[in-house]
């Protein structure tokens, strides 16, 4: 088991012009935790993982495994991947098609000088862990996607490496299989307690698996914290957008009245003493709709116009316009024949939300005030 420390890591590529993929990144991963790197494509998360694995050659910075440098640009240290004690699970599984499942899982043991462990049954044990014991003599080409994924997992874990790296391992699976493998992975981590880094662009994966999660933006870490911290207190507008607070409204004080995108707010004040201008962030599910003019007491209310309504089974998705801005509200579908079901394009409605659910960000994108913390405390 190991702790991992990354300092000032920088990596750029020379395409037509120089593109910086990792920009002066600092990160500390604690012994036994599964750290999730979350971000949109191109934010540098996979490159970071590949730098940790030794598959990329960073320009600057240091990477330490348990205080021992495996990469140090200044000293010219770059330990090749085969001499770092790691296991990697690839997005495309990368099972070698010319070897049986058994040979695939044995491979790390043989290459790391742990041949004796094959006789001790480590291969079977690893296969057992991921429910693949009955597949050992098949070839990867004969397995389904989910089975291949589990074999890849066994191969990554079998040599009991100090660090296990996951490069979007679930993204090639269909939705149902993904949920199954995800919970299996969670159990495995709890049972084995390995230190791991998990790269994904799927926020629900990150929330479910991460001991901590790091949201990346343009090669830097924008926020690092437990899933609860990040989900409930997004530090910046960027994180808020990525973690599901997808509705953005401009709120400001105008002639003493609070206004969002030019429409006056009725009921509870949103800004409540914060500076005069902010970006208001809301989750679609935290919005309620009521007939026009029928504001909800104790909440903030804004008049809006329905732009489109779609039926989603247990819920309805409504696109509503507030001034020039369009936002998304997801509301319970209600009973057949209910008021919500009748909504269609052009209908005037009242949008309301609890101020506790709202997040405010200044013009620099940073979270405003202490509102978020107050909510957590209450």
């Amino acid at each position, binding site marked *: 088991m190991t702790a991992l420390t990354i300092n*000032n890591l*920088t990596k*750029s590529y020379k395409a037509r012009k120089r593109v910086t993929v990792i920009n*002066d990144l600092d990160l500390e991963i604690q012994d036994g935790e599964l750290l999730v790197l979350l971000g949109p494509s191109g934010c540098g998360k996979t490159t970071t993982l*590949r730098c940790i*694995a*030794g*598959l990329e*050659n960073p*320009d*600057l910075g240091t990477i330490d495994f348990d205080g021992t440098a495996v990469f140090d*640009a*200044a*000293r*010219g240290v770059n330990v*090749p*991947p*085969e*001499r*770092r004690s*790691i*296991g*990697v699970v*690839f997005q*495309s599984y*990368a*099972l*070698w*098609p*010319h070897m049986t499942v058994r040979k695939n899982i044995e*491979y*790390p043991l043989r*290459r*790391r000088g742990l041949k004796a462990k094959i006789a001790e049954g480590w291969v079977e044990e690893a296969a057992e862990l991921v429910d693949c014991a009955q597949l050992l003599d098949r070839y990867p080409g004969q397995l389904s996607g989910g089975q291949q994924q589990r074999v890849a997992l066994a*191969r990554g874990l079998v*040599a009991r490496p100090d660090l296990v*790296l996951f490069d979007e391992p679930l993204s090639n699976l269909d939705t149902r299989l993904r949920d199954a493998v995800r919970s299996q992975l969670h159990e495995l981590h709890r049972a084995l307690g390995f230190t791991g880094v998990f790269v994904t662009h799927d926020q629900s994966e990150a929330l479910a698996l991460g001991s901590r999660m790091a949201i990346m933006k343009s090669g830097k870490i924008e926020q690092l914290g437990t899933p609860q911290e990040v989900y409930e207190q997004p530090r*910046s*507008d*960027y994180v808020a*957008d990525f973690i599901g607070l*997808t*509705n*953005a409204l401009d709120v400001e004080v105008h002639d003493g009245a609070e206004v969002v995108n030019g429409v006056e707010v009725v009921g509870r004040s949103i800004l409540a003493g914060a500076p005069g201008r902010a*970006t208001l*962030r809301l989750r679609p599910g935290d919005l309620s709709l009521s007939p026009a003019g029928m504001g909800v007491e104790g909440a903030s209310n804004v008049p809006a116009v329905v732009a489109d309504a779609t039926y989603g089974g247990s819920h309805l998705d409504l*696109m509503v316009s507030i001034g020039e*801005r*369009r*936002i*998304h509200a997801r509301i319970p579908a209600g009973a057949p024949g209910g008021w919500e079901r009748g909504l269609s394009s052009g209908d005037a409605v009242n949008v309301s939300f609890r101020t506790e659910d709202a997040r405010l*960000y200044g*013009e*620099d*994108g*940073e979270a405003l005030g202490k509102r978020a913390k107050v909510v957590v405390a209450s």
Partner: protein
Amino acid sequence: MSVDAPIREEAAPAPPQSVGPRTSGRGLVSKWLRKLPLAAFVAVLAYFVVWPLVMLQQRAVEDGGRGYDVAFNTDGVGQVIWDTILLAGASTLIATVLGTGLAWAVTRLPSWLQWMRVLPLLPIVMPMVAVVLGWTFLLSPRPGFLNSLMRKLPWWNDLDSGPVDVYSFWWIVLITGFALTAFVFLFVSTGMQNVSADHVEAAHTNGARGTRAFFTIVFPLLRPSLIQGIGVSFLLGIGQFTAPLLLGANSGIDVVATWMLMFTASSPIDYGAAAAIGSPLLVVGLVVIVAQRVALGDQGRFVTHGGKGFRSAGKPSVWAVLAVGFYFLVSTLLPLLALVVVALSPYWTGTPDTFTLDNIKTVLTDDRIVDAIRTSIVASLGAALLILPVGFVAALVMVRNQHNRVLRWLLDVIVALPLGVPAVVFGVGFLLAYTTGPFILYGTTWVMVLVYATLMLPFATRTLLSGLIALGDTYIAASRTCGASPFQTGLRILMPLLRGSIAGAGAIIFVMLTHEFSASLLVRAPTVQVMGTLLYDYWTNGMFPVVAAMALVMTAVTGIGVAIAMLIGGRNVMQNL
């Protein structure tokens, strides 16, 4: 939904740190040490590929350019150069038209005749000497089989020779054109695999008819393969040796390549003049290679998506079957049949009742011939075994090495050189390089092995390169992160996964080398003969039935090689050329 979320401005200025790699003295030394093996590899390759060409130029310019003086003041030099250009241009034109037409035709073969796709590729593996000999037996003015047949026609029955003279310039052009067609076909039909059926269907649904769709969509997408095909065909045409040598000698038609042989083989022997007359070929070769790169430009533009492969919009056509069949007939079947008939006859013109196996027996028992066959096989096998690992390393460097740009560029150029420089020119270069120090190998089989290996360097590298690219990066990364060194990864992951392409490439290399003629003729020694060179000697001595039998044996060796290649490399091994 948020539409215009504000972009967070950079709060603090970038930390005061220099951007770009920084290396201390120790790092720098180790960086250079790491480059050393690669530099050594490139240097060794440069020695084998570039050194003979340097020797060539040195010999041409020594004594104040005496070689150039002699070569370009020999009577008829203007005619020779003009004939060379005309032969290359005209045969490439024929090859381009026929090759493109055939590539289109094979897409319209009915499903039960799909196996005919491979027929237009056969001339690539057929020994060119055998084909040319076959044609002389068919169309030699007096005794040629087809000529005799045609003279039975009422309007020609007054002739006692002709009507066709295979020894004339335009028949040399035509036969060369037929042979080069296979190369254009190879490139264009491979290119067609990249034009997805979706592209064509999209054109149709947007209102383009058949021909319009071909000229606005298919043809432009084929441009890179066409340019490559034409380039390769022109290079082979300008260095063309076999047909002018065997057919042109009778009527005094010469090209630059045959003059190079003349200067090195018949007295007064003048290596300087041979080197000098070869210089234009060298220059043209380099120009074509550079021009191809420029014309292809940004290859990414031509990368198409959609894996369906090309499917012609038209129905299976009987004309397509006839076209492919006719090409097979004239490029392969007819010459081969003529060879069989002559090989079985006591004289050139035999009839079935005089057929005998004596010639075949002679070929299989004559010590010189058996020796030549053995040398051919040993040299081809040796060269294949030597060049495959070299090509593997070169391909690996090209794919994996992103750091040493200079070395990689050098390697790229060195590997491309034997493709641009005609085999005859290389032959003279090797003759000069290995009759002097430091390695005097002339008169040994080694010189054959080295020439052959050098000639096949581009082919071996490119085949393995495309195999590596298709394999992708992940299998390698997975192995490295499992604790395997680069060497172990190569041995346990790459080699087994590329087994098919390596073996296929090896077999095709072997096949093409067993009937190598042009370079062999220049570097052979009286004691070191290969099948092609000995066949040429017997041909000049007029022993036609034995020559035909030898050509048949060469073809048989080829056939066995191709069969083995297909057995290990799969049916598509020919497509991987």
